[in-house]
């Protein structure tokens, strides 16, 4: 029967196709809420949610916040930069204190992979991973999948090119885990120093030539060049990065005419993506943001909506 049989959402890697279908179907049903005159429903009235962010975010944090509010929950935001974390409090202690105040779910973003897993084990509250290091960003993966499913009807046999810095990208990893479960053909393209390794067992192909990945692609997901995570020497200059690996209008013509152009944001215009492409007719970047709220509403409903037995 419906409902997720898990307390936490930590990554797409361990999720089944049935669970992902349920989340995407629920998101589809909830999506229209955000366009109604009255956006609030009483479904999660009385539930409390905290977004606990150890890294900066506008889109993900606000998207979770709106999703929680649309469903009638109360939500508070804790940013590490302005909290007791500055006084040396550990992640676990901070989260336990929030739980002691009665929160039902903790949405956590952290620069260390596995931080949400640590919390999931030590809290009774549900934990949702909002991005952990370079490991996973499941809600981004799910919203990307919802966007693709809406436009393409499914995933099987689609050529999905993930372009850019996949090595530092939790978005790329969640996309790979999710899409390959449905039989999509995933390509990674970028400089060899920035390519994620070890996904051969998922059938992922890698190339240093962007053109090879874009050729005949149904979906192009452009990754942000994560300037804050770069060590020295992984690529020469930002300008040279754009020249070799940037997604430009000219390169995008190699893809299918009805290609979907995606970007998880925030964009470095003129670096990994040309402005003309980002604002072009194939871009579904705004739909991704809209779908993000829907996916997060779906997860909050599925995790917090039922009773103890659910």
């Amino acid at each position: 029967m419906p409902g997720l049989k898990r307390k936490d959402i930590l990554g797409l890697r361990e999720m089944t196709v049935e669970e992902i279908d349920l989340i995407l179907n629920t998101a589809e049903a909830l999506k229209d809420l955000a366009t109604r005159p009255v956006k609030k429903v009483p479904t999660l009235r009385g539930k409390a949610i905290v977004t606990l962010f150890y890294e900066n975010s506008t889109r993900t944090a606000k998207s979770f916040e709106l999703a929680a509010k649309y469903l009638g929950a109360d939500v508070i935001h804790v940013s590490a930069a302005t909290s007791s974390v500055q006084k040396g409090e550990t992640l676990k202690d901070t989260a336990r204190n929030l739980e002691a105040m009665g929160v039902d779910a903790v949405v956590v973003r952290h620069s260390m992979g596995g931080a949400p897993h640590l919390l999931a084990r030590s809290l009774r509250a549900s934990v949702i991973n909002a991005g952990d290091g370079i490991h996973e960003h499941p809600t981004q993966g799910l919203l990307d999948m919802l966007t693709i499913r809406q436009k393409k009807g499914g995933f099987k046999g689609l050529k999905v090119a993930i372009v850019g810095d996949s090595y530092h990208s939790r978005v790329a990893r969640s996309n790979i885990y999710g899409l390959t479960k449905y039989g999509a053909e995933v390509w990674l393209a970028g400089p060899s120093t920035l390519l994620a390794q070890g996904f051969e067992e998922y059938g992922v192909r890698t190339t240093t030539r962007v053109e090879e990945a874009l050729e005949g692609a149904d979906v192009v997901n452009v990754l942000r060049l994560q300037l804050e995570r770069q060590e020295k020497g992984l690529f020469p200059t930002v300008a040279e990065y754009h020249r070799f690996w940037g997604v430009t209008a000219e390169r995008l013509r190699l893809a299918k005419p009805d290609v979907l152009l995606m970007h998880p944001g925030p964009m470095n215009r003129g670096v990994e993506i040309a402005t003309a492409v980002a604002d072009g007719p194939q871009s579904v970047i705004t739909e991704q943001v809209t779908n993000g709220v829907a996916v997060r509403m779906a997860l909050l409903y599925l995790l917090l909506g039922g009773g103890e037995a659910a």
Partner: protein
Amino acid sequence: MSRPKALLMDATQMNRALSRIAHEIIERNKGTEQVALVGIRRRGIPLAQRLAARLKAFEGREVPVGSLDITLYRDDLSELASLPVVHKSEVNFKLPGRVVVLVDDVIYTGRTARAALDALLDIGRPAAIQLAVLVDRGHRELPIRPDYVGKNVPTSRRERVEVHVTEIDGEDFVALYDNE
């Protein structure tokens, strides 16, 4: 599926009841100009469509039909062992100025109707809301009374009323069962 202990309505009786309700809707609202029908998921939807077809046959005018999923408005979500699947509500017409007739198969405690009222009012502000049900089985827990009733059936709380419709179940009948 257990065996019914009594057949409450057969297909002919269901058809007659729906035709009578359609006439009552027309009479009460002096025509169908303002009328719209909104079926409550799941079996209220085919019933609303059948009423719309009758309103068209009797008055010669298309009446808009919508559907409402009340899951997000239920008051017992935190008590359910398994979480209901959320579906889309589709009300693709403007509500102000409309008389909306909510349509459901069975009214029992009245809690579904309460949730439907809240769900509808969050979409817009109709001129009036009326309630049509195929079966009223009593045991109301809220001060809610349907405007149009196909059949009143006295029941015990240990019993269950099931409405079967061809669109979903392959045949038309209403029957009474014992809850195991």
